[in-house]
């Protein structure tokens, strides 16, 4: 059986080396929470922690990126949840380190399990949408410091928040580059992806490249530097 504490240590080691994340979780320690509460903080052991984490991650995605006038997380389920957690988070956040990924799954599981243990409410998966929003708001505001569980909730909550946002706006499911192509044409997407919602043009295709080249072919250039600059 995987040693939970070791998994959490490895998760912290890997994730806090990811410069981007240090920004938002500096000082947090899931291991410290484990040392205070022991394994009960993660609820009853489940046979397949990844399946449970998919459930939580999917619910989290639906909360963070709802369907409104544009598509949201639910539009692309279940593939986006499987890709987001099983591939993107695993490879990009925990760098393919299985032990660290196991620690992150424990943190995600704790995010679901902790509310009843601190008498905050039902488990995350059993909450209404409004209660989930209230719970996440409080996690982000650091409201669980006095309950002693803020650190592990920050790990689970912040990584899921970044994970779903970045997965959705990677142009899922049309995001993978063709590694041998000179051009990366973006095909028309139905339904609209994150890129479309942002009206991001994406890479230049062969035709557009020709148009840009024609537009810029005769552009005049002013040689040298700006000699009106008295500092140089």
């Amino acid at each position: 059986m995987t040693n939970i504490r070791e998994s959490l240590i490895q998760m912290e080691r890997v994730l806090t080396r990811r410069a981007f994340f240090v920004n938002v979780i500096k000082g947090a320690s899931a291991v410290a929470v484990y040392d205070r509460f022991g394994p009960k903080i993660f609820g009853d052991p489940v046979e397949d922690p990844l399946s449970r984490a998919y459930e939580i991650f999917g619910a989290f995605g639906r909360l963070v990126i709802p369907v409104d006038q544009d598509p949201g997380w639910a539009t692309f389920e279940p593939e986006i949840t499987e890709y987001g957690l099983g591939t993107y988070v695993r490879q990009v956040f925990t760098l393919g380190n299985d032990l660290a990924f196991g620690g992150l799954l424990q943190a995600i599981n704790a995010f679901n399990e902790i509310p009843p243990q601190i008498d905050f409410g039902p488990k995350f998966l059993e909450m209404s949408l409004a209660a989930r929003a209230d719970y996440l708001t409080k996690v982000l505001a650091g409201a669980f410091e006095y309950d002693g569980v803020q650190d592990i909730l920050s790990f689970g909550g912040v990584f899921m928040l970044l994970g779903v946002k970045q997965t959705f706006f990677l142009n899922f499911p049309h995001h993978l580059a063709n590694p041998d192509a000179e051009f990366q044409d973006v095909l028309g997407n139905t339904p609209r992806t994150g890129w479309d919602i942002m009206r991001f043009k994406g890479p230049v295709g062969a035709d557009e490249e020709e148009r840009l080249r024609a537009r810029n072919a005769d552009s005049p250039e002013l040689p040298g530097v700006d000699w009106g600059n008295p500092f140089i």
Partner: protein
Amino acid sequence: MSMVETYDVIICGAGSGGGFMAGEIAAHGSLLILDAGPYFPEEAAPGIGSPQRRKLATQMNLGTWLPDSNESNHGRLFFTYPMYMDQSNPFSATAQREPRLVGGGSAINVGAWLRPRVVDFDGFEEETGVQGWGKSDFEPHFRRAERILHVHRDPREYWNKASILYEQIALDMGIPVFEEASNRHRCILCGHRLNAGMPCKYDSLMSTALTQIPKAIQNGATLLDNAKVLRVEISNGTATGVTYERNGETFTANARKLVVVSAGAMGTPLLLRDSGLHSLNSNIGQYLRAHPGVPIDVLLPGDDWNSDRGYQWNIYHHVMEENGEALDSVVHASAGFPATTPWVAAAFKIGLFGRPYKDVMRKFRGRAGAFIFEMKPAIHGRVSGSVDYPVISYPIATTTGVLEPKTLSELVAGLRQVWEVYREMGAYSAFPNADDPAPILHQQVSLFITTSGALHPQGTCRAGSDPSNSVVDANLMSWDVGNLMCCDASVVPNHISANPNSMIMAVSSRAADFVNTQILGAGPEVTAEAEEAALAAEAAQEGASQ
């Protein structure tokens, strides 16, 4: 070990420094150029590129620094080094990168060509006593590099709208704004390479891989790419050659007259350490200078601010004090790094979720921004370890986790000044928010820098007047080992107030004149000064004939 060949000069590293020098000296002696990265020798037309180079844009791997991993610093086109910046969190390292491809930094940088400030040249002598490093000493070399690299400015009809408006409003506010020169000829503004600092897919960037390296090869130089130099060979106090690894085999090449180490401000001291020189000169790897920078991302009304794709750097200015003096901070306006790709922009407003978050993301096209560099932090760092196991320390944040005072105050002044300009342009939201209370703003800036790193490393094998405070003399020759030269950003005696590419090439141009005239026996007619005189005479003759 197999095969020994002998050349007059061996250059280790074909980037801005070594690549530029190669083009200037190859006609005057036999030359071997070694680079750890790949070279694509196809004919490359500026703005069009070649099929192989086009594919670089999708085959890049930046590399991640993992101290526990055997794969450590092996990004596909980069060496990746850990840089420890935060004294309050000694276990946290940023991943710093130096390019590993022929062309080096000149193939990667965003094409911004900034001259150092006049005051920088005075600072060289003040710092190490180095002689002959005045502005006038380098002027012909800047101009030579600018001719070769096709340095130019774009007319305003090719600027993006945010740049034009920023210029107008900043000038109205009394902030002197200048045109930013670039060395990207016939750029089609595809937005591709600017997303991650990758080499230009269309070869519009006039790197040494397109300019000086082909010239060197044409003049008989041998270029070996994917050749990682393991050490400089030294015998009886003189550099005699190098040992390098290529295709799994180890080779030694001999140098009759000179070995030039041009592996970058981090790679050069590490290679000298691997060669044992740090036992001769304790200044190797010391005095690391770098430029910590912070972006500001704003939301403007409307949705047509970022040109077609990504960002353009058209203008820059120094952050100005109320008394009209320029601080040591430079603003590249209308950059907007965080706005360039949706998945990076997705982290904007991290605490938002639900419909409010989607509303922000729908405003993506209204984003603009600037990048602010602090050019003269009041600290220096250190490069130690080895090429395979480097340790870079640049402790810009104190034990409180907050940046050293000068860096912090000048970056915050920059954020506030830039935000004033954008607010006048109609911006209604900024990140970081320069109106936040000082403690919050200070923490945000400190966290960004200690987790994102500091760019433009310099000074790790600096030039000086005495071996007690420097690694090389004014001509870049090692104080301690004969026939050994360093030629890249590592030799800059004190930090400069600009992106360093132009300074590296000017330094390299001057060093090339020294090599040609003092080591390879060429006449004075090959120097930059003679070149300028010839050009002036040619122009005068043309004028007379018209």
